[in-house]
């Protein structure tokens, strides 16, 4: 099964739509609830990252009998130092993002904690791609 979602930078009212949708799909597929929670928390943090930092992005989700593979590709400012961005507490989020309850530098570490595999690549002034894989 393959699903695709478009994400608009700055649009917090829609942030989390793909994550909610994936949660419903995985429930229907009778995936273990503990695994569902790990998958959707990782996706949600990554989805909020696109809304908070990028201009727009695409989420592609591939589900088979062994894994959920999610790829989030955005067009945006990119990340100059992924090592620094992975540190808990490091954030470049705007005051608006902080008002929404995010931007405390926990997003990427939270994704890593909940994903079985996480890969991130980024190019400054081009965009960022995050791959999240969870085995089901």
């Amino acid at each position: 099964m393959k699903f695709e979602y478009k994400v608009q930078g700055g649009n917090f009212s829609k942030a989390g739509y793909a994550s909610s949708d994936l949660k419903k799909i995985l429930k229907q597929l009778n995936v273990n609830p503990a695994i569902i929670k790990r998958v959707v928390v990782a996706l949600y943090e990554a989805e909020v990252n696109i809304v908070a930092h990028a201009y727009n992005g695409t989420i592609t989700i591939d589900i088979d009998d062994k894994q959920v593979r999610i790829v989030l590709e955005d067009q945006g400012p990119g990340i100059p130092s992924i090592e620094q961005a992975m540190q808990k507490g490091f954030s470049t989020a705007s005051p608006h993002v902080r008002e929404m309850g995010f931007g405390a530098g926990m997003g990427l570490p939270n994704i890593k904690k909940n994903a079985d595999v996480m890969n991130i690549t980024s190019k400054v002034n081009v965009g960022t791609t995050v791959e999240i894989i969870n085995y089901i």
Partner: protein
Amino acid sequence: MLINEIASNINAQIHCIEGNENIDITKAFTSDLMSDVLTIEDSDVVLITGLANIQTIRTADMADIRCIILGRNKHPSSEMLELAEDIGITVLVCPLTLFHISGILYNKGINPILIK
């Protein structure tokens, strides 16, 4: 503790209770930081927060939280309540501060979440 009992203990208005009447809440977590809420691994948790926006509801959904208490008289928007109803999350609106709500529920036997 049932959500109705929680509401009467803190003098809160109840929104979107349908389907959640029999949930037994055993723990509470107080935070305005949604990334912190997303680290919760426990179940049967009530979220006590002063953050009243659409992401409060989305975050609760991702963290498997079925009841949110909005403190300091923060009122949910109609967009928040529509989403809460759609995904089955109860929203309590309470005039008390987060500290006050937390203290009352702690005294009534609601447990904290222990950080691992």
